Structures are given as structure tokens and as C-alpha cells.
């Protein structure tokens, strides 16, 4: 024991010494990226998880980095399963549990039960279960499996969304409902699947339903009462989008009055999509929240001439009022369903010799975007998977250089478009380690044939106008865990999966271990510097959830993850989807030919320790 403490102290001292050494050595272009024993110049802007996991990404900035280092590259090979629990629901288990005060909180897919587990007792017995009983009809308007991406904790409450658009706050001790607020309507195709983020007294949450002509929005609720304080739509007039005098977008393309109306055919914005079903991040230093919006509706681009703002846009807003500070439309006039609702990671980093306030967005469109999070200026956009819809981004205008041959029109099939609608990555979140300077991206390599067809709006049904089929991209693989050097905008290493996309979140730790899962069900620990697989274990079902790490009441470090294949691509494992139709499930079945052979539906929480 004494030896162990001494070891920890020594490691700490070494780390500190090396950290200061690393900083002193700092010169240009993020030179210390991925140098073992040296730390790159990165400043984390939000507190790191302190052994608990109280927010969806562990921290406000969405790094998914935990400084815990009991489990490290030397001993991770001894990792053992120490607990497991079936949720009894064989659907996609996206998102992650929370850990607060020695209790783990598991949120299930529909019917969105909240289960509290006592981490102080062997086997982690259940303390209580809260059942919100969402409307079963909500399952019929959920585009991509009946998933949920987790909760946030603050002020003694666990706050999360049900599929039928209720935001619920549950007493973390008793499991009793404190309040519930309805923020959307399933009858027009709206669902809520994303994890809310709590900033001070405000619960911030988006919606889903971009495939059903839903008008996307984000709302801010009072944490004490659940009362709605603000609502910011993604389309429509400036007053609805909460664009006011403080709105200062960087690029002329995003400047002007009521662009949420004027970039659409008449009334098109009312069914305009731009839903917000991904991750919301927050930077305490600039006091801004960041999130991206989804595809503009309808999918067929010919039916909505114009830029279709604010579909596929990254917004920066004030958390208390929702007022927009800046916006950057990533993809104007989308023709590919490239929702950019992915994580926006806020860090300060050495950027070409100068510390800058960055927002890092690994995108569905296949580019890693790096923005200045104070202004919305695009600093870099580089491809991390095969991409052919655009050649590059012009950093002066913020516009992509689109290949017209890869744009579909009514009755015209755009062939071999890469990436497919499912993207170079999906919503599954990356992790950024301040110890390596690397961004660990769960990536896909899938392409598609995409045809626009006439669409007919019927409330509560899909509003698509598209016929799509997907297939594996070039290079003989479909998934890859990519280690990305942010400062130098290039891939350092990758771990490829031949048959299935990587569809799980990633966790980086102070022990220089990177955890993620494959859709086949392998839960893996990689060396954060080299990508070597140090440990892996095959779990009961494919992994589409996000690993977390925490310190148990016994002082030991643990790692937890859901196993339960599902989500848009993973739902192909369900018996209700036939692989005989390569156009099924919005076209993903063509790319998922082996899934039923490689895994099967399930729903289990696994906990690992040394």
C-alpha cells in the first residue's frame, strides 16, 4: 500500500515536472502532440470529472477525458468484469450512465426507465427504479431506434428526456419525480433523444425528428421548477431563432436579417428540420453553449432551393437567455443529410504558435472542423475519412467546394457519394486527451447512391423525398478508431474494423488508456499514444454506448459501458429489419450485411475494474 502511494506521488511529481518542461519547450505548431512523457500545450476550460461522472460527457467542454490513472497502460491487461446488469430492453443502448455520490444512474432506451445502483455493495444492487411511462406511440416517430443519450445531474436532481418529449427531473436520492415538462409533440413527428446539459440553473435540451419535417429547436428550462425560460428555433424569423443585436457571425454568408426565412422557398422553414439531437457543450470562460443542428427538411434538395438556414449550423448562445452569439452554417443547402449535431469540444490549445480558444468539431460530413469559439471563424477543415462530396473548405469564405456530380436531384441518382448520410462519423462522441493532444474519433467509412424523389408532407410521417442505399467505402474497412493530431490536422494512427462502423463513444484517461467499443461487441482499451490494443473483451451485444470511468466508494477506479446494439445503423441487427432490402432503414441495410451474423440485440450495463 505504502509502495503504491509512493508510486502515485512519484508519478504525480514526474507528471508535474514533465508538464512544466513540456510547456517551456513549446514553440510552434503543437510540436508536443503525442510525445510520451511530454504534455502538449492544452488548457482545459472546464473542471475535469473528479471521480464522479455528473454530465453526459463528464465535463462541460465535452472532452470525455478523465484524469483518473489507477488503470493505466501497464495494468489494464488485468481488467476484469466486476458487475453487470440487464436493462431487460433489447434496443440500442446509446449514451452513458452517470455516477454521483456512490450511486450509478442508468437511463434505458424507451420506455426510458431510470435505475439507481448502489456502488458501495458487491454486485451493485438496485436502490430504486423510476418509470416515466412515455406514450408508446412515440416509438413510431423515432427515426433511428428508440434510443436515449443520457442525463445530467445538478442540485440533487437527475434530469433527462423521454422519447415522447417530456423532460423529467428526478430526486437523485429517492427516485421521486420532482417535475416534468412537455417540450414537443409526437403528433408532428417530434421526439427527444439527446441528453440535456445543465448550466447553473438552466436545463438545456434539443429535439429530434429531422426526418419527419419537424422544426428543430433548443429550449432552456428552470432547473428548480421545469418552467420553460427560452426557446430558440433553428429556422424561421430572427426573433424565433433568438437572433438579436449581439449576433455576430464571422462570415458574410451567415450575416443578414431573417435568413431562417429568406433562404427557403415560401414557408419551407416551417418544416425545415435543423433538429438538435446531439451533444451540447459549454465553456465557462466565454460563458457560451455550443451545439450543432441537423439536416434541413425535406431530404430532396430540389424541393428547398436556398441555403436553408439554420440547418447544419453550429450555434454559440448565452445559456441564461438563449441569445445567439454567432453561427456558422457548416453545409449550406444540404444534399446528403449531413447533420452536424456532433460534439463541439472546447479547449484552449497551441494553434500555430499561439494559444487560441478552439472549438473542435469532428463532423458527419467527414471533416474535422476547428473554429475559434469566440468568433466562429473556421481555422481548419481537414478530411478524416474518404470524402468526395466536397474537395475542401475555403477558410476565407467558410464555404465548402462542392462537387456538383455528388449532388442529387429529383430523379437523378448521385452515385458513390462519400461519406453516406450516416457520415464519416455519427453522433457517437470523440474524446480529447490533454496528455497526448490527440482527438480519438469513432469513424465510419460508408458511401451511398442517393436519389431525390417527390415528397409528400403528412404530419407525423417521414418527410424524406429520397431513395438511398449505402455500402462500404474504399479501402476494405467500414469502421475505424482514428487518432487525430488536432494541431497538425492529420491522422496519427487508426484501428480499423472490417465489417461494421465504429458506433460507440470514446473515453480518454489520465492513465493514457483510450476505451471504446465495436459494433460487434468488443470492448477495447488502447494505448493512447500508439493505438496498440492492450486489452479487449467481447460483450453480450454490440456497443453503441459511451464508456465512462469513475472512482468507486472503495477508492478504486472503474470503467462502465452499455452493451446493446442499435441506433440508426445498429438497428439492422433487429429482427424487424430485413437485409433483403438494401434501401431499408433509410438505406443503411446495404452497408450492414454482416451485422446479424456478428451480433444480436441486447441491453446490459457492464462495469470493469482491476
Amino acid at each position, binding site marked *: 500500500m505504502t509502495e503504491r502511494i509512493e508510486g502515485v506521488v512519484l508519478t504525480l511529481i514526474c507528471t508535474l515536472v514533465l508538464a512544466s518542461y513540456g510547456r517551456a519547450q513549446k514553440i510552434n505548431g503543437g510540436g508536443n502532440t503525442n510525445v510520451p512523457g511530454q504534455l502538449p500545450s492544452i488548457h482545459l476550460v472546464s473542471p475535469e470529472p473528479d471521480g464522479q461522472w455528473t454530465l453526459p460527457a463528464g465535463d462541460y467542454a465535452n472532452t470525455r477525458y478523465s484524469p483518473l490513472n489507477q488503470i493505466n497502460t501497464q495494468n489494464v491487461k488485468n481488467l476484469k468484469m466486476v458487475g453487470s446488469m440487464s436493462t431487460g430492453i433489447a434496443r440500442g443502448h446509446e449514451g452513458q450512465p452517470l455516477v454521483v455520490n456512490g450511486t450509478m444512474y442508468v437511463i434505458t432506451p424507451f420506455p426510458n426507465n431510470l435505475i439507481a445502483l448502489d456502488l458501495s455493495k458487491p454486485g451493485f444492487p438496485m436502490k430504486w427504479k423510476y418509470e416515466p411511462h412515455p406514450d408508446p406511440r412515440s416509438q413510431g416517430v423515432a427515426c433511428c431506434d428508440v434510443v436515449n443519450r443520457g442525463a445530467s445531474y445538478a442540485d440533487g436532481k437527475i434530469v433527462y428526456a423521454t422519447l415522447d418529449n417530456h423532460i423529467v427531473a428526478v430526486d437523485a436520492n429517492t427516485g421521486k419525480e420532482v417535475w416534468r415538462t412537455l417540450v414537443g409533440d409526437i403528433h408532428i413527428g417530434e421526439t427527444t433523444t439527446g441528453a440535456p446539459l445543465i448550466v447553473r440553473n438552466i436545463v438545456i435540451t434539443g429535439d429530434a425528428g429531422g426526418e*419527419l419535417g419537424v422544426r428543430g429547436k433548443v429550449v432552456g428550462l428552470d432547473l428548480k421548477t421545469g418552467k420553460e425560460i427560452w426557446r430558440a428555433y433553428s429556422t424561421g424569423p430572427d426573433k424565433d431563432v433568438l437572433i438579436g443585436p449581439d449576433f455576430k457571425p464571422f462570415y458574410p454568408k451567415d450575416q443578414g436579417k431573417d435568413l431562417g426565412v429568406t433562404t427557403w422557398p415560401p414557408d419551407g422553414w416551417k418544416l425545415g428540420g435543423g433538429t438538435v439531437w446531439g451533444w451540447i457543450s459549454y465553456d465557462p470562460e466565454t460563458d457560451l453553449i455550443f451545439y450543432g443542428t441537423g439536416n434541413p427538411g425535406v431530404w430532396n434538395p430540389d424541393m428547398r432551393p436556398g441555403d436553408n438556414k439554420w440547418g447544419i449550423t453550429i450555434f454559440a448562445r448565452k445559456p441564461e437567455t438563449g441569445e445567439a452569439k454567432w453561427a456558422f452554417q457548416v453545409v449550406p443547402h444540404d444534399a446528403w443529410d449531413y447533420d452536424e449535431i456532433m460534439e463541439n469540444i472546447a479547449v484552449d490549445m497551441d494553434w500555430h504558435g499561439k494559444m487560441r480558444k478552439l472549438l473542435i468539431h469532428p463532423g458527419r460530413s467527414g471533416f474535422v472542423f476547428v473554429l475559434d469559439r469566440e468568433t466562429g471563424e473556421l481555422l481548419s477543415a481537414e478530411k478524416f475519412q474518404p470524402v468526395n462530396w466536397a474537395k475542401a473548405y475555403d477558410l476565407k469564405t467558410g464555404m465548402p467546394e462542392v462537387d456538383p456530380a455528388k449532388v442529387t436531384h429529383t430523379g437523378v441518382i448521385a452515385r458513390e457519394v462519400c461519406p453516406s448520410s450516416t457520415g464519416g462519423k455519427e453522433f457517437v462522441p470523440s474524446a480529447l486527451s490533454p496528455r497526448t493532444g490527440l482527438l480519438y474519433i469513432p469513424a465510419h467509412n460508408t458511401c451511398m447512391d442517393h436519389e431525390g424523389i417527390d415528397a409528400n408532407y403528412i404530419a407525423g410521417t417521414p418527410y424524406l423525398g429520397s431513395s438511398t442505399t449505402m455500402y*462500404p467505402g474504399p479501402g476494405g474497412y467500414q469502421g475505424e478508431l482514428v487518432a487525430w493530431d488536432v494541431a497538425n490536422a492529420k491522422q496519427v494512427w487508426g484501428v480499423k474494423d472490417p465489417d461494421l462502423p465504429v458506433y460507440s463513444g470514446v473515453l480518454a484517461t489520465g492513465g493514457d488508456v483510450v476505451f471504446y467499443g465495436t459494433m460487434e461487441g468488443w470492448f477495447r482499451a488502447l494505448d493512447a499514444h500508439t493505438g496498440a490494443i492492450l486489452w479487449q473483451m467481447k460483450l453480450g451485444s454490440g456497443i453503441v454506448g459511451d464508456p465512462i470511468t469513475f472512482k468507486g466508494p472503495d477508492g478504486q477506479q472503474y470503467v462502465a459501458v452499455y452493451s446493446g446494439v442499435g441506433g440508426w445503423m445498429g438497428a439492422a441487427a433487429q429482427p424487424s429489419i430485413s437485409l433483403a*432490402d438494401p434501401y431499408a432503414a433509410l438505406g443503411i441495410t446495404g452497408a450492414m450485411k454482416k451485422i446479424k451474423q456478428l451480433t444480436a440485440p441486447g441491453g446490459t450495463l457492464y462495469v470493469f475494474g482491476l
Partner: protein
Amino acid sequence: MIRRIHMEIALLATCALLLCSGCTQQPVQAAAEGGLPGVKIPVGPIPGPQMEFKMPTNPYEENSVAMEEGRRLFVWYNCYGCHGGHAGGGMGPSLRGPVWIYGGDPAHVFASIAEGRGKGMPSWGTKIPQDQIWKLVAYIETLGTPQEPDAPHVAPDPQVKEKK
């Protein structure tokens, strides 16, 4: 006399038959009047062999023009958005069989479309004319058979082909 008795027996038998047919037929009509157009199944106890009532059949069975029209309607009414481009499933289940949650014969498929189902299938009985629902049923019954209109082709992956 004997003849008269015979006649009486015959008359009674006829009455009994009429009454019995009333037992089954009446509720069917009553339900159809008050509910959505289409298939109704009698409610309440029906004794003995009289339970074998006749299920409605699709007026467009084996009608290839109606199957084609059903395919068009399947896209037009956004069925393809939930059930997949060629009905292989997605938000809603695959209709390509062999599993039918609520029954796969034409009358049950009609009922699922007209009345909706609890997990999110909308009820279309008041939105789509009965005639068009039967055409949708005619299309759905062809899935995976040689009669299927606009059948999906499971082609080898284009990229894989390129490499050879």
C-alpha cells in the same frame, strides 16, 4: 300428416339457420357501420362451429395493375419512410415477412393500415380511401415474390467490384 311434420321440421331448421347466421352476421355489420371502413371482426361469444366466419378478401388479389399502383401509393403516403424503401423495415417493422406482428393475411394487413397499431403505426382509415388501402395490401402481399413491382436489387458493393 307426415308430410306436414316434415314441413314443420324444415321450417324450424330454416329458422334456426337464419337465426344462427344472424348471430354472426349482425355484429359484423354493426361494427362496420360505426367504425372505420373495412374489416371488422365480430365481438362476443359465438357458439360452436359458427365461429368460422369468412374473412374479407382483397378485391385486387392477383391484379398486377393494382400491385403497381400499390407500390406507387406505398411511396406517396410515406410508408417507405418508416417501413423501408422496399418495405424491409426501419422505424416500422419489415413487411417482407415471415414475421407478422398483427397477422399477415390480406384482411389483417388491411386492418393494420386502416386502424393503426399501438406502437406508432398511424390509423389511415380516415385518410386513405378503402380502395387504395386494398391496393397497398395487394403490393405488400407481393413482397419477396416474383410478382413484386420495382423489386430491390441486392447488388455487390460498387467499391468492392472496383478493386477486382
